[in-house]
């Protein structure tokens, strides 16, 4: 069962379908998150609709950009220490 599932994930023909599945489930959960009952909002951003999804995507973009910039400073050829 695991093998079939993993084969399905790896098959390039299914990439489009999987991507669609990802976006649909993201949309569904983000909408559910908007309507989720919140007993207390610890910070102001907790009451922004779909805050977590927005924060997730912003975090990734920030992280990738920061890593790229850091890479220019810190990355070296593999034989740097040899």
């Amino acid at each position, binding site marked *: 069962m695991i093998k079939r599932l993993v084969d399905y994930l790896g098959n390039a023909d299914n990439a489009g379908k999987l991507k669609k599945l990802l976006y649909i489930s993201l949309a569904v959960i983000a909408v559910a998150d908007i309507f989720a009952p919140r007993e207390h909002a610890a910070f102001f951003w907790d009451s922004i609709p779909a805050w977590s999804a927005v924060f997730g995507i912003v975090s990734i973009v920030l992280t990738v950009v920061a890593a790229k910039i850091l890479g220019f400073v810190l990355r*070296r050829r593999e034989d740097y220490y040899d």
Partner: protein
Amino acid sequence: MIEWFHPSILFIFGAFLIPFLSGKARQIYLVLIPALAFIDVVFMSQGTYWTFTFMGNEIIFGKADSLSLLFAYVFTIAAFIGLVYALHLDDAPQHMAAFFYIGSSIGVVFAGDYLTLFIFWEIMAFASAYLVFARKEKAAVDAGFRYILMHVTGGVFLLGGIVLHYIATGSILFGPIEKDGSLAFYLIFIGFILNAAAPPLNAWLTDAYPEATVTGAVFMSAFTTKTAVYVLARAFPGTELLIGLGVFMAIFGMAYAIMENDCRRVIAYSIISQVGYLLTGIGIGTELGLNGTAAHAFTDIIFKGLLFMATGAVIHMTGKRKLTELGGLYKTMPVTFALYMAGALSVSAFPFFSGFVSKSMIIAAAQHDHMAIVTLLLTLVSAGTFLYTGLRLPYYMFFAKESQIKAEEPPRNMLAAMGIAAFLCIAIGVFPGALYAILPNPVHFEPYTFDHITGALSMLLAAAAGFFMLRRLLAPEQTISIDTDWFYRIGARIFMWIANKPIAAYEGFVSDLSNTAVMKPLYAVARISLNIDKYVVDGIVNGVASLVLAISARVRRVQTGLVQHYAMAIAVGIFVIIAIYAIM
């Protein structure tokens, strides 16, 4: 009936039996010992045991309370899993090193005084270094030496702090340290955070762990940093410095992990990032913060072990360790991939996986104390953690391209070990109650609220969407990233250059100078003084001697022994005296 039995005894003394066993007997023995140790801990009662007096001080081997028991539980579980993973290995010294390492880590956890703690602390350093040396390749041996040097240095700081602490307080009992900003406070603190791999004292970890043997790295991921977290939680709860340091560590580990090409080094940076969360919880120091640290240490040991086991299995089967060389393994190693993902989803705090019930406690502790920036940054790192362990690494290792690498699933014992760890990750994630029951403080925390699940899931799925949009920017490259080990690797080279070039040149100049300008005149002076000695001094001495001989040869004749000669001499003498009187 023995009232209390120290589980370290099983490992440290049990290690000496390993070389005498072989085949099946040894394999049974290797899993029996951690199983017995686990049972020992399960039935252990809290209290203070095995106290001795040594040079007027109380030595405590067995201080068992809820915090030490929690670490003892997870250490014995990690030992069991790690040894199952290493069962195929026919290498008695490596198994012995692992036993010493496990035993000494548990020794630290039950140590009630600094002396006991320090001794076990040092055994840990040397036993774990063997697991790096055991890979035998030059890169591993070099990294092993750097590892041991860093830990010995850390040990010196710790010992210095302990001595000053003893002088100041007259006690070697291990407990919360007065936050007085004294030198003792900082020396002990530095000794502890070095083992927690806090930057800038982090590089020993990411340098050495990926060079260790496939099985050794699994043990290393579990014990050294987590014993450091344990001692910090005991001695420094509520130390605000740890909050800033912890958040910085969480970001630091993530930033390096994203750039890394060596698969086990990605996981090694992930350790630094997760230990950052643990230190933040200690720094917050509230009941919730310390509970969060204890819970997350427990789950982290298991899922981090799983990640090291799965990446290690790939290295074991393919002989390759770089993401640029791997890829497409989903066809040949699907089970390994699935087990890896159980660990990756746990570390990413995916709902119904173990990290979700522990990491969120630390973030909730920050939230509870209205630390807005800490909360935001730790949440950001959660998304980033999913990016590099849950998406980038598995994507480039198992998918990305149709690979020609010949591989198959790892040996049964490796799969079994990973299976146990994956089972625990999911079991703790679904039923957190059992873990919450053994935390040091009472738990009033419910991870599974509707908004918490939807919030976490939407953030992680958004991160996944972000990854698939930006993944070209994240493609692994054949590079290494310079870290703080630069200072002692290049620093040592600069030192050697100074020693070889300017100092050696100066040394040459000085010896030339002394050969020509100093030594030659000195030789001449020496020659002259030799001659003076030979001819003048010796001449005088010899001359005086022969003169004395000559005189005495004549004077000897005066003594004739004949009375008439003496009478004659007396008469002449008297005559001379009278003559002198007469003349004067």
